[in-house]
């Protein structure tokens, strides 16, 4: 077993371990950050497999994404300090089955899929970046551009839904604001 394989195994196990921690912990933030470190470990696996650009990109993107997820979890789920002892497992039967099926599918794909000829020569990192760029602006351009555009559209749509129009009256009367509201609109008839 080469050093590379050992490291690959180690990071793989770390990824799985952090994945388990996501559900074992009772703190929202810990759960989110465990997912982050699981993804970081996957990024490290890319690095071990000499896919430098992919690895670095994965490590970079996940830090921000998972942190943003964490803040949304905290804001809405209300488990400050993680002492709420929340249970991270829900709809256990459904998720169990979904997990088994997904795992089976993924391992089936890994074992029986046609992965093409095994590359004997790994291009150096600089070359990889160049090839990736050419790929992105060649065969895969349409896919990436349409995916990007879709995400952009979704972002704009989500933002415009979230923004409350400034002049629309509020649907629920807000008690805390009452002292500053003007009450006598119509005046005496």
């Amino acid at each position, binding site marked *: 077993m080469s050093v590379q394989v050992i490291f690959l195994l180690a990071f793989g196990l770390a990824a799985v371990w952090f994945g388990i921690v996501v559900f074992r912990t009772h*703190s929202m*933030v*810990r759960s989110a*950050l465990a997912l*982050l470190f699981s993804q970081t470990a996957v990024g490290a696996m890319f690095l071990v497999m000499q896919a*430098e*650009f992919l690895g*670095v*990109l994965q*490590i*970079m993107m996940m*830090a*921000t994404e998972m*942190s*943003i997820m*964490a*803040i949304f979890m*905290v804001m809405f789920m209300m488990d*400050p*300090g*993680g*002492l709420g002892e929340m249970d991270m497992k829900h709809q256990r039967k459904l998720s169990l089955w979904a997990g088994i099926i997904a795992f089976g599918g993924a391992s089936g794909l890994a074992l029986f899929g046609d992965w093409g000829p095994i590359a004997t020569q790994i291009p*150096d*990192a*600089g070359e*990889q*970046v160049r090839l990736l760029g050419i790929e992105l602006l060649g065969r895969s351009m349409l896919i990436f551009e349409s995916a990007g555009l879709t995400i952009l559209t979704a972002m704009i749509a989500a933002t415009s839904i979230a923004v409350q129009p400034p002049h629309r009256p509020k649907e629920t009367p807000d008690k805390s604001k009452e002292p500053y509201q003007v009450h006598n609109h119509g005046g005496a008839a």
Partner: protein
Amino acid sequence: MSSFVLIASLIFATYGVAVIEEWVSTNRLRLAGPLISTLRLLGQENILPRKSDRLFFEVGPVLLLIAALLSLAVIPLAPGLIVTDLATGALFFNAALAYVLVAMIMAGWGPDGAYGMIGGWRFLGQLIAYAMLVVMPITTVAMRAESLSTIDIVNSQEMLWNIAYQPLGFLLFLFAGMAMAFVPPFDLPVASGELAGGVEAEYTGVRLIIFRLGRMVLILSVSSAIVVFYLGGWLGPFGPDWSWSMIKILGVAALMLSGGRMLPRIREATLLAWSWKLGIPLALANIFLVGVLVLVVPL
């Protein structure tokens, strides 16, 4: 030998940044200042707040230091004076510093203090403001160098430094870099006047030493990135290469640390508005402009 020079100069530079930091914040130059402060903190009680998330509390400062050190790994002080010359160096720099955010969230959350928690989450808001303004100017720098390697990037500025070739990118990156290193006026997560120290508020003793050291290395790392990307790295008219790197790095650090003190701390809302409404369009324009320049006047 070269690795010894590298480590020695990085330690020296970090100490230099700490001296400058104390100088601008107290208006007094004390060369032994950081040493005295470190000694004081070394003797200070290490307080563990009650009900803290112990794991996060301990890991936060360490992760900050590690992230900052990793980002320094791709910064060349001179040809050959670099920890590792990655082909994706410029991207790696950004990837490592993304974990500063994670460290801040952990350090803010861990001690279970409201000030720290708000400070940590504030930094997330700050990241949403500066993140694009870090990546997009790096893109144009890489476009000119036709490489993400930091060594190649410095070499590409042989004829003309990037500060002259793409001044807009420099300004955006300086602004974003200051926000990334949370130096004033972007010190929202550790503000004294607004959060009584914020993320730092609950740390004492050795943990605080690690946190502050991490922050100094972070400032050093950001200023060296500015030097590498825009100020021609080690390039200078005479003398040893590394000395030019050092002079420029400490100069940029002094500029970052002192410049911000003249300005009131920025509002979170203003920071986001400026970054997205002004900064990102400018960064896009910069990409376009530099793209044309690279094709028309490749220097």
